[in-house]
């Protein structure tokens, strides 16, 4: 296929492009596409081919163009356009069949090609749109990439700046630290220097002071004096005492006494505090024990076991030493005992409290309702009341439902009945439909039967005809054999009447008015019959037949009459047959049928008589 496409004539390809355009533009269902394509390809081709190919092939270069085409086609693997040459000299004949085949092939290929092209083009379109989409996507992504890159660059820049700042800050911090260090060093150095200077200055100052002191004090300044009216007594009333070692010692003693007093005071305070604390501890312990022991006998024992028996043993036998005496002992063992036991108890209490807390929290989680405490009895009463109410409500609902149903039954009866009737009608309709179809089928069957009957009747008619012909011939012969009566109708009539049964009266009436009308006459006039017999071999004309038929129709039933047009029209050729059948059908309807048959025969004969002249 690819090869094919590559080698195609540019002109042709353009042409095919045209066509493809046509086809591609006409959007139709695939089934109709084929037809359309054919049309399209055929119509414009027929137009363009001429104009286009005229350049290629003219009257003069038919041969060359053919050969050229042949060559071209053979190169493409087509069979040669020429017939198999018998000889080299002989001019090769153009093989029309081959040409046609080639053309056909070419056309098929063209079509295929067009199809393929179309496919390719649609694909191309699709791909083009895909491409567009992808390109737009690409552009968008590129934009995104660009923006994110810019963002990234911005962030990097910020990061860099922050890092820079951080570095700067670090540097600053370091600088500050250095500064602080430096300042501290400076302070320290300054402090030392200051101290040094101070010391120096102070020494100088002291020297000066000393000098001043000497100067001022040694001069025995007269002004430095106290003028007092009279010395007053000491506040305590005692006389001043001389400074002696004794007094010094006394002062020391006093000082120590004071200190001792202070310490004693403080010790007393501390002791009091201790005692109070011990009391508190003791009380706490007692309370703890009393609180914990009834509930938590086992844990205590366990704890005792675990923490060591020594202490608990001491604890357990309080009878030997009274509690107070224990507390008065401020020795370490007792203290340890106390603190240990307290700690232990405390631990137990703590765990207990924690457990309680947990329980409480659990309870809280389970239901907040416990907060608003309602007594159980109240609760139950309330629930009972509520249940009762519910029951009442249910009953009410039930009664109302019943009432509603009743109301519906009474008020909406008509509607329902109509509805029901509708239902029934529908049902009936269905039923009727069914019946209808059944009837139809039956009708069909009947018709079939009728057809078969008619066929049978036709056959019977034919047979009868044959038989009658036979009889006629036989009668003729007999007639001929018998005495030759010229126009002795009476006998003939008698024969007829004897043959046709009871038609005496008719015959009589007809006889009274002969030749009034052809069909009147046909009503069983003996004259006709006689004539009929004479002109039997002649073929009856259609008009006559119609006449006869119409006349017969008077006697026949309506139903039969209705059918006649249907029967007669298609069987125009076989008029006799129709008549036969007709007569057969009417036969059971009345006795006149026989008579009519008779009349038919008579008319026939009559017609022949009419036609003959």
């Amino acid at each position: 296929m690819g090869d094919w496409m590559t080698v195609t004539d540019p002109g042709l390809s353009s042409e095919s492009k045209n066509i493809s355009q046509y086809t591609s533009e006409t959007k139709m269902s695939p089934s109709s596409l084929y037809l359309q394509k054919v049309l399209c390809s055929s119509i414009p081709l027929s137009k363009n081919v001429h104009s286009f190919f005229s350049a290629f092939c003219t009257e003069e270069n038919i041969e060359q163009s053919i050969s050229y085409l042949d060559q071209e086609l053979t190169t493409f693997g087509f069979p040669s356009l020429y017939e198999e040459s018998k000889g080299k000299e002989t001019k090769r004949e153009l093989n029309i069949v081959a040409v046609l085949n080639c053309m056909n092939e070419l056309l098929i290929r063209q079509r295929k090609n067009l199809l393929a092209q179309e496919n390719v083009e649609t694909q191309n379109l699709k791909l083009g749109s895909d491409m567009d989409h992808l390109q737009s996507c690409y552009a968008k992504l590129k934009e995104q990439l660009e923006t994110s890159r810019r963002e990234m660059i911005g962030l990097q820049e910020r990061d860099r700046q922050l890092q820079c700042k951080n570095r700067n800050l670090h540097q600053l911090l370091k600088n500050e630290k250095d500064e602080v260090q430096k300042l501290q060093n400076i302070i320290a150095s300054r402090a030392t220097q200051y101290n040094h200077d101070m010391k120096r200055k102070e020494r100088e100052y002291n020297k000066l002071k000393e000098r001043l002191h000497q100067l001022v004090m040694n001069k025995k300044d007269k002004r430095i004096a106290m003028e007092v009216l009279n010395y007053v007594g000491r506040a305590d009333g005692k006389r001043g005492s001389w400074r002696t070692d004794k007094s010094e010692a006394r002062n020391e003693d006093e000082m120590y006494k004071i200190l001792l007093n202070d310490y004693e005071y403080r010790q007393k305070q501390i002791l009091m505090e201790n005692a109070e604390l011990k009391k508190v501890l003791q009380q706490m312990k007692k309370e703890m024990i009393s609180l914990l022991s009834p509930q938590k006998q086992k844990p205590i024992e366990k704890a005792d076991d675990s923490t060591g028996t020594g202490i608990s043993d001491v604890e357990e036998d309080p009878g030997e030493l009274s509690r107070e005496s224990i507390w008065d002992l401020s020795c370490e063992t007792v203290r340890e005992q106390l603190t240990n036991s307290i700690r232990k108890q405390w631990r137990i209490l703590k765990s207990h409290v924690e457990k309680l807390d947990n329980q409480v929290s659990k309870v809280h989680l389970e239901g907040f309702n416990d907060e608003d405490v309602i007594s159980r009895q109240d609760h139950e009463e309330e629930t009972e009341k509520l249940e009762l109410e519910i029951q009442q409500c249910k009953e009410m609902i039930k009664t109302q439902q019943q009432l509603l149903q009743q109301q519906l039954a009474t008020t909406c009866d008509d509607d329902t009945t109509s509805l029901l009737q509708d239902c029934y009608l529908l049902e009936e309709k269905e039923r009727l439909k069914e019946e209808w179809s059944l009837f139809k089928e039956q009708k069909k069957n009947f018709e079939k039967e009728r057809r078969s009957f008619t066929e049978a009747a036709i056959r019977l008619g034919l047979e009868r005809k044959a038989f009658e012909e036979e009889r006629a011939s036989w009668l003729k012969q007999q007639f001929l054999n018998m005495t030759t009566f010229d126009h002795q109708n009476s006998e003939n009539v008698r024969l007829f009447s004897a043959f046709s049964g009871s038609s005496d009266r008719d015959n009589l009436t007809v006889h009274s008015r002969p030749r009034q009308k052809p069909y009147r006459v046909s009503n069983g006039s003996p004259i006709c019959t006689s004539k009929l017999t004479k002109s039997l071999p002649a073929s009856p004309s259609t008009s006559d037949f119609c006449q006869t038929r119409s006349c017969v129709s008077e006697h026949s039933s309506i139903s039969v009459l209705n059918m006649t047009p249907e029967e007669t029209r298609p069987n125009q050729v076989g008029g006799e047959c129709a008549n036969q059948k007709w007569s057969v059908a009417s036969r059971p309807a009345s006795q006149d049928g026989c008579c009519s048959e008779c009349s038919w025969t008579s008319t026939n004969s009559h017609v022949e008589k009419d036609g003959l002249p």
Partner: protein
Amino acid sequence: MNFSEVFKLTSQLCKFSPDGKYLASCAQYRLVVREVRSLQVLQLFTCLDQVQHLEWSADSLFILCAMYKRGLVQVWSLEQPEWHCRIDEGSAGLVASCWSPDGRHILNTTEFHLRITVWSLCTKSVSYIKYPKACQQGISFSRDGRYLALAERRDCKDYVSIFVCSDWQLLRHFDTDTQDLAGIEWAPNGCVLAVWDTCLEYKVLLYSLDGRQLAAYCAYEWSLGVKSVAWSPSSQFLAVGSYDGKVRILNHVTWKMLTEFAHPAAISDPRVVVYKEAEKSPRGALGRPACPSFRAAESKYEIAAVPVSLQTLKPAADRANPKIGVGLLAFSPDSYFLATRNDNVPNAVWVWDMQKLRLFVVLEQLGPVRSFQWDPQRPRLAICSGGSKVYLWSPAGCVSVQVPGEGDFQVLSLCWHVTGASLALLSKDHFCLCFLETEDEADGAIGQLGAHT
């Protein structure tokens, strides 16, 4: 609350006698002694020069008037008005003079702190103590009057000498581990001596009476240190106010810090009550045109909603003695409260609850707090801020009281009567007494004080 008439005064020299019966005040060179109850002039003494220092002896029998310029001390007896005593320090000069606790000796510090002369009123004996240190608080008598602790400086080292006041015998002499000792203070029980270093270094040392160092405490280094120190009356706490704006409370058992009270400018603790002084009505209200006085607008306290920021002062960093840090500290007599002033929040007084060890109340005044003093008998704090009002705080509430009188009476200082029944308010050259209701009336009166003018 009643106010006395206004009396003349110089140099804010006005003192109640320790027994609470008399009131001594100096106007120029005159010493006036009045009976507190009647304010009748009891005695009038004329000194040789303008008095610069006035001090009652502990037994309320003698009054010391020091005239530093002249190097003179005059002592007057209340019992014997004709009795007189004059001490002349001569060329040695005089910078400080004080009574010994027994009321029979006068300690005069000469110029340049060359020595302290101990003059006795009983005998002719004169004692000299050499090398006293020139410092913020170099002399401290124990409360029972038994001992004198004296800071000394010898050979560039600090020493403390403890003398027995009865015979001025040196009991202990020990060097202290300080760079430049700034102050000493006996605990009220007289057994522990607190010693603190100069403001350049944070150091508090505690010495026993027998000279043993009990503890040393240093909160931080390389910054200005201790600014003020106060013992609680129970000797249980030592409050140390420092230049970092905090008060650190040391306990008396381990001498370690119990807690520290910071003085933030913003108070956010909802438990703290902040009383804010507010002007009651604008000056020159039209409703009172007849009022002739030029009194400043009355003020009242309002309770501020808790997130409060106090006015702060930016200290001048390039000057000596910057206005930062806790400069004033005072325990209430029952040791339950501690009042402080942070010098860079000059308008506020902070009252701390020492039982709960937390801030209790903050009083923000309209002006800078000049001084405050606890009622010696009950937890009641009197505050003055240089205006014409005196402020009282008690746990029940606080009031601002306008000092009546003509002209502006600017209360620069105040001192309580020993019973807490009256309060001397001192302005630049006047003083008046403020009589408070007796105890049974006090509670009701405090509630009415707002309405009272």
